[in-house]
């Protein structure tokens, strides 16, 4: 089709013109490229990319990194004339996460931001009624997509499940096959977690 390397070079030139500090650049394949920038440069980058033709916002979401104590925001943009997917990523603080809303640039981001607040707890000042619940109803716990939320414990506490009685009889009482299987399981677990070989 079209010339792949020249498309990605066009994107590089646009990003250089905005004079924004690029922390990381990653070329994934012929049609995708990713940039990581600081939090304060998000608005200038997005508006200059929109003027050059990247008018469709495909996806907006967040990733949780509890070890580094940060959350990462992602914006995915696409242009149908020069086909390159651009990923814009930036890391923000995890205790009080807050990013200015981008509704004036891309009006379609309104519901994506509402969903990011509900699942991660990120605040978006500038977006009217982003605090109302969209998908969950009467939710009474921490935002569910954070890494310190355990869905199994919540499900056992609130929705009791069906109990199946443990009924079995020994088919061959002399052979004791069950004890052999349990010993084999213990040995396999030891090897998997790095114990000594026997």
């Amino acid at each position: 089709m079209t010339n792949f390397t020249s498309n990605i070079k066009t994107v590089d030139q646009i990003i250089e013109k905005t004079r924004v500090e690029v922390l990381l650049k990653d070329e994934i394949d012929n049609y995708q490229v990713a940039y990581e920038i600081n939090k304060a440069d998000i608005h200038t980058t997005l508006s200059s990319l929109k003027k050059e033709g990247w008018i469709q916002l495909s996806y907006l979401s967040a990733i949780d990194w509890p070890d580094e104590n940060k959350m990462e925001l992602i914006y995915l943009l696409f242009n149908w004339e020069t086909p390159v997917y651009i990923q814009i990523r930036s890391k923000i603080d995890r205790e009080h996460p807050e990013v200015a809303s981008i509704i004036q640039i891309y009006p379609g981001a309104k519901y994506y931001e509402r969903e990011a607040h509900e699942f991660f707890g990120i605040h978006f000042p500038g977006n009217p009624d982003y605090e109302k619940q969209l998908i969950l109803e009467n939710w009474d716990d921490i935002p569910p997509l954070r890494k310190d939320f355990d869905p199994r414990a919540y499900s056992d506490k609130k929705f009791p499940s069906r109990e199946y009685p443990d009924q079995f009889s020994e088919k061959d009482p002399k052979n004791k096959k069950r004890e052999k299987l349990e010993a084999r399981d213990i040995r396999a677990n030891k090897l998997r977690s790095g114990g000594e070989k026997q």
Partner: protein
Amino acid sequence: MKKMKLFLGPQHPGMHGNASVHLYVDGDIIKESYLLPGMLHRGFEKQMERKLWVNNIALIPRVCVPEPDINEMSFAMATEKLLKLEVPERAHWIRMIMLEFARISAHLMAYGGLGGPTGNYTIMYHAHADRNRILEIFEKISGARVYHQYIVTGGVRKDLPEDIEEDIIELISDLESRLDEYRDIGIDNASIVKRIKDTILLPEEVVWDLGVTGIGMRSATNKPYDVRKITPYARYDQVEFEVPVSDYSDARSRLDIKLKEVQQSINIIRQSLDKMPEGPVRVKPGRGQSMRWTVPKGYVYAPVESSRGEFGYYMVSNGGTTPWRVGVRGASYPQGLLGIEKYMPGTRIDDAALWVDTMGVCSPEIDR
């Protein structure tokens, strides 16, 4: 000006799936409208982080219920991009056949959805009877009617059976000869033309504002923007097909484009049956133990063209045996949520259920 509140609720004979629309009406005209999603929410993105890469293949077809093959294809493409794995040649052509059959069955189901809101159930019975024949071919190929779990990382699960080619050719020749009959019953029918002609318009500026993709974009802007042509995947650049467009977007022209796309899918299936080479169909990823393979670090996005627009999985991996974050970009997210809030007021109450059907709003994709 008086306002009355009305629930076009989840239990409704014309509603596609389990979503409800809240309307504020004055007489017969809608003044405000909001969609209430969340009744089909299962917490997929949290569940996928707790299961191995191989176990996720059983979970993902259930994200989009009418057309489950696009989920498997997008997940497999994303993991293959991270692993830098080469899929054998025959597997690409088999994947194309499955995807095109899934597209035909989803278009038939959306076309049959005209039956509920207009009260003309003949269309629904014809469309679902033909869709049942496609589900029987799926059962012969992969073993299950609806959730196949057939397209995996590294190729396809097993080869096609012996005499499947004659069954496929008989079915698609029969469908091709009856597309005119579908037009006579549905969009050229004198009893429902007045409800779908010149109603539910979609002007061109709205498309760029919301980010609508798929048939809504191609019918309003007259440009052939299709993911299969612009960023091709899986040997779509070696078959010849057209992308139908139109200039004026009302309900009738969008349904017309759907029938034209069914014709183009039939052409693609015929060409792939001719051009398919012999060979193996699967490559195992094979890092570490047989089921607990790991994927190197990276962030990748894999888009696929579904019957409603651009559908994709955003995958983040940390080098472990489970994914770190999986994000699903539903194809009907823009027109379902923001479109109903801003551009449905002004129409009448009986157009509300038709809006949800012809614009392509599928509720399991919005809720995940």
